[in-house]
């Protein structure tokens, strides 16, 4: 951007950040900021620290953007977006009534923002192309198996199972796509989420809108999670359709050697989609955290993919077996629990707990970084 030269060094940025509260403080009339003590940990939420300067002066919230003249163009400092973050139309004091209106409007804004993010994500040719690639892989594999494998040959387990039943192609497709291709796809979208906006210079416009950093982060994460589920569903659907066209339909043989009806098999595919989607959403949290640290989206994407590959390498070393349960990709493959009889709910639950832990941990890292970051581009 052309403003890059004008951007002051970080030291100046911090100085600006510290001077802005005086100008921005008056607008904070949100109910929570009226708390008199602002040093307690819970008051460090974005938007609340802005009341450090006082918060007693009346009204004028909409005028915050017009900061002091010392402000360098192109710089959106922490303190400012924190205050703009929670900026919303000035409400009368709670005594004046209609308090429920605000949360509703806030929620509406959140879903509108998410909607526009989703529309952007799913309209972007790159993202659609990646989904198309994911959809093509099961088709290619299915055709390959159909051409190569005659069912009477000595085929190893999974291939024989696929050749024997149409539904098994879905699980086979998951079992190799989940190793690298799906993580890469999800990393591209989630890793681009913040870094891409920062690099393109659009992040400060997003923050200038009354979105708030925490809410923007939540929207970005939900957007990535939805894309993760979409990618999973695309793989499942493509594999299912390919399987039904190429291979015989009918009762499904599970890994335990038990046979279940086709309807139940479809149910188990749905379970697997839910689990793998959660796995990819957990990876999206990692990519989003990476994304908060850089303005070069390819950096965040590459970092996440390298992490995934590194984990796969660590898992392959027998001496490091003890580490494996703590690595995220270890849990990706555990969707095979739905192919056992009875369904191994314990394994699925354990996997989901691991995903939850990763989402919370990396979500909080992303928040800590993003909510305190000066946007300099």
């Amino acid at each position, binding site marked *: 951007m052309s403003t890059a030269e004008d951007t002051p060094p970080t030291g100046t940025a*911090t100085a600006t950040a510290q001077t802005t509260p005086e100008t921005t403080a008056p607008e904070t009339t949100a109910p929570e900021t009226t708390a008199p003590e602002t040093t307690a*940990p819970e008051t*460090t939420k974005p938007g609340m*620290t802005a009341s450090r300067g006082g918060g007693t002066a009346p009204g004028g919230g909409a005028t915050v953007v017009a900061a002091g003249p010392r402000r360098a163009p192109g710089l959106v400092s922490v303190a400012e977006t924190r205050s703009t973050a929670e900026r919303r139309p000035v409400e009368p004091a709670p005594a004046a009534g209609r308090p429920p209106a605000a949360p509703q409007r806030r929620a509406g804004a959140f879903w509108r923002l998410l909607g526009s993010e989703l529309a952007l994500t799913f309209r972007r040719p790159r993202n659609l192309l990646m989904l198309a690639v994911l959809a093509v892989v099961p088709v290619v594999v299915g055709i390959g198996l159909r051409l190569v494998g005659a*069912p009477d040959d000595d*085929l*190893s*387990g*999974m291939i*024989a*199972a696929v050749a*024997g039943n149409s539904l098994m192609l879905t*699980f086979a497709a998951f*079992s190799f796509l989940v190793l690298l291709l799906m993580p890469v796809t999800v990393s591209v979208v989630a890793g681009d989420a913040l870094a891409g906006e920062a690099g393109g210079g659009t992040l400060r416009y997003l923050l200038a809108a009354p979105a708030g950093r925490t809410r923007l982060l939540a929207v970005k994460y939900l957007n990535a999670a939805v894309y993760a589920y979409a990618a999973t569903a695309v793989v499942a659907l493509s594999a299912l359709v390919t399987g039904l066209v190429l291979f015989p339909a009918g*009762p499904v*043989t599970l*890994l*335990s*050697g*038990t*046979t279940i009806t086709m309807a139940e098999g479809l149910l188990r595919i749905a379970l697997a989609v839910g689990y793998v989607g959660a796995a990819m959403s957990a990876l999206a949290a990692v990519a989003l955290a990476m994304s908060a640290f850089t303005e070069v989206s390819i950096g965040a994407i590459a970092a996440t993919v390298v992490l995934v590959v590194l984990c796969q390498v660590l898992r392959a070393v*027998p*001496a490091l*077996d003890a580490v494996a349960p*703590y690595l995220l990709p270890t849990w990706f*493959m555990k969707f*095979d*629990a739905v*192919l*056992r*009889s*009875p369904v*191994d709910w*314990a394994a699925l639950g354990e996997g989901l707990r691991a995903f939850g*832990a990763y989402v*919370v*941990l990396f979500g*909080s*890292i992303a*928040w*800590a970084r993003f*909510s*305190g970051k000066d946007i300099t581009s």
Partner: protein
Amino acid sequence: MRRGTLVRWGLPVAVASVIGAAIGAGPVIAAVSGDPVLPERSAAQLLADATAATQKGGIAPMSGTVQQTASLGLPALPQLSQAGGSSPLSLLSGSHEVKVWYGAADKLRVAMPTQMNETNLIVNGGQVWYWESDTNTATRMTVKTPAGHKRPVPPLPEQAALTPQQLTEQLLARADEHTAVRVVNTAEVAGRPAYQLVITPKDEGSLVREVRIALDGETYVPLQVQVYAKGSAEPAFQVGFTQVTFTPPAEENFTFTPPAGAKVEERTIDLADLVGRRVEERTERAKDVAEQAKVVGEGWSAVAVVPFSLDDLSAEARGKDASGARGDADPQAMLDAVLKSATPVSGDWGSGKLIRTKLVTVLLTDDGRILAGAVTPDEIVKAAGVK
């Protein structure tokens, strides 16, 4: 750095510590919050109760997950890790998990889940099925027991003449010479309160610090066995339930019909034949060995001394190698790896190679003897001097 930044980064740190605590606290809580739920018992009482409970109605129907972990400190063996999930060798390192459903004495299902595969053993009445998903093969095994030979009930010695109390008292008295036995009533295995029988060798030279056998506090079913080596806090070998429920498992666990498209094989296992042939084969060799083998020391510090020759062993390994047992680890390579890890020792008895693991020490002497025992290297060297 602003204070706000510090406080903000406090959140991820807090989250990380909560997750770390959740992962790490389980065993710690179990160990620390040792409120004895179970009444105190002496070792004799406990064993008597366990025997009585088992004799009354057999083992209660149950299902659960059994985990086996071994960190024996073996020299790094090539192919050990690749020896496949079903190879017995693979059990010597790392951690393995099987699921167990137990309905009655003749109803049992054992499943070994591996990534995208599963091996099952299903016993229902006289019918035994073995299912391997990776080869898509179901094997029906018919076990022919020798005529007139009833299902072997593991009889306890002099069972008829003794009450369980007397029996255990005798056993404990006999053990007393080399072993200290005590009972811990605060243990918890798979979330269930359990008694732990702690067996501690009295011999200084033993590598075994203690053996802990956990018995369920309610049903007296053995839930866990742990072997601790001296000088390590984690058990060197452990097998036990990580999850267990004492409710009869669903009937469909024990019914197996080979799925369509699977290869079905029949195999008859004639116990009489099997045992007979094996015994014949082995007695010949065993006689040879037994004549020359001897045991030095007694109790926990006993050392077995067997004559052998390294060349024979290598030749045998090569022979096996040539016959090409499919899927087995290359014996020659393993032998080489073991010998490479051995340290040379010598004394007035001669010289040899010492192989140390956490639980077992093996000494190959140059004069053609092999000494093995769960003892310290000093002890085994001492034993080598005893002619």
